[in-house]
């Protein structure tokens, strides 16, 4: 009851033009989505290399990848973000300074993408490894026996078939990426959660702003789920469905 009254009296704080904070929230949302996209992309790249490395790489590569995925999956993202955010930028700068270059400034945006991408990469490695394993090995052997070069084999045989198996896991990873961007609030990056927090503490309308931000995250989540469901249907288009053949 009280919450409802408080909510109604502060709804105009969400207006798109000042004194409403709507536009600022949407800018924060855009930044969150862009970081999530970048991190997801980087994660896919690392994950593809990691999955191939784990399956077909030498023993050393496998050991190193096992260490990487184990550490990332056991240490809280918040701590990885802090370690990478500070250690990463300062070590790059130390390296550049020692080589006689100027200090570069790594934007919070780039650092956010790299940090979340490294985290995503570890999970993507496992998802993609499982998906590659789901491709019948006879097909890969057949293609190899026909003399197909490795890259073409990956492009023509493995990738299209593993996609269907990988999509549910990747959809999950994407949702994790969008939610993990909220952790960047802790290092002061103005994504949706931090902007919401600033708006809430300035106006004291905590409920209104946290609910609004929750709704925005939820919209992203629902839209992505629908999109990935269609994507999965598309990726499975060639497959025989049980009961219809």
């Amino acid at each position, binding site marked *: 009851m009280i919450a409802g009254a408080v909510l109604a009296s502060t709804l105009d704080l969400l207006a798109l033009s000042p004194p409403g*904070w709507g536009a600022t929230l949407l800018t924060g949302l855009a930044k969150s989505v862009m970081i999530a996209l970048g991190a997801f992309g*980087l994660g896919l790249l690392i994950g593809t290399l990691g999955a191939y490395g784990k399956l077909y790489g030498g023993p050393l590569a496998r050991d190193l990848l096992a260490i990487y995925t184990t550490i990332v999956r056991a240490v809280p993202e918040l701590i990885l973000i802090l370690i990478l955010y500070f*250690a*990463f930028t*300062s070590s790059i700068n130390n390296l550049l300074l020692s080589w006689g270059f100027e*200090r570069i400034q790594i*934007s919070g945006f780039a650092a956010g993408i790299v940090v979340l991408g490294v985290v995503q990469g570890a999970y993507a490695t496992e998802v993609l490894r499982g998906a590659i394993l789901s491709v019948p090995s006879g097909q890969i052997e057949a293609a190899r026996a026909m003399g197909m070069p490795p890259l073409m084999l990956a492009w023509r045989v493995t990738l299209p078939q593993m996609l269907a198996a990988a999509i549910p896991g990747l959809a999950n990873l994407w949702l994790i990426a969008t939610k993990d961007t909220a952790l960047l609030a802790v*290092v002061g990056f103005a994504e949706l959660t931090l902007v919401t927090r600033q708006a809430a*503490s300035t106006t004291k309308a905590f409920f209104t702003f946290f609910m609004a931000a929750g709704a925005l995250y939820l919209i992203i989540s629902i839209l992505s789920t629908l999109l990935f469901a269609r994507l999965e249907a598309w990726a499975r288009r060639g497959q025989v469905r049980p009961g219809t053949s």
Partner: protein
Amino acid sequence: MTFRSLVAATLLFAAPAAAQEVKIGIAAEAYPPFASPDASGNWVGWEVELINAVCAAAEMQCVITPVAWDGIIPSLTSGQIDAIMASMSITEERMQTIDFSDKYYNTPTVIVGAKGGDVAPTPEGLAGKIIGVQASTIHAAYVEKYFAGTAAEIKIYQTQDEANSDLAAGRIDATQADSIAMDAFLASETGMACCETKGAVADDPVILGLGVGAGIRKGEDELREKINAGIAAIIADGTYDKITAGYFSSSIYGG
């Protein structure tokens, strides 16, 4: 492989800093009336105007960069920002890690508590109470040294704003902070309804410091001299007083 792709990805996104651009770090959390974001996301406040004036006077191209207060010194030492101007007091402890410019303001330290509550700014007056302070501030250090023995609990907040919210919500009994920042809170609707000043704490210059200055990486004397010159220039030509008049009824430069 991963490391190399990482470096490559980062370098793609990272633009080399323009020659004269100086990144001034402020706390990403609102600290009214010194620095807080307005509804369109722009940072406003006394300190923001001061930064712009100092930079103009020193002929520097400044970019105001919000950084989490929690990590503001690491951000400076790791090179994400070039100077801190976030109401940071000049203390001996911090000077072991970073350098400071001359001070640009100085305010007394007060204890604020709930209206009518039996709180006083002394160890006895805070016996059995829950005190909230902002993390890594002179106030946190002071409370730890003088009130930890008698207080029931010391709660550490990332921002003074959160401590104020919790004071209004009755979750803490008192908070210690700059009198100016607290005046602004006490003048707000929430502050007026709940709380009042309980008086200034006894001074301890070693902990409470020598006023607020700009933090700079050790050894960057050129930047420090420029900022010092900028501060001196705006005080001399009256800009400092003009900015202050927009926010406060009297000077906050302090003795």
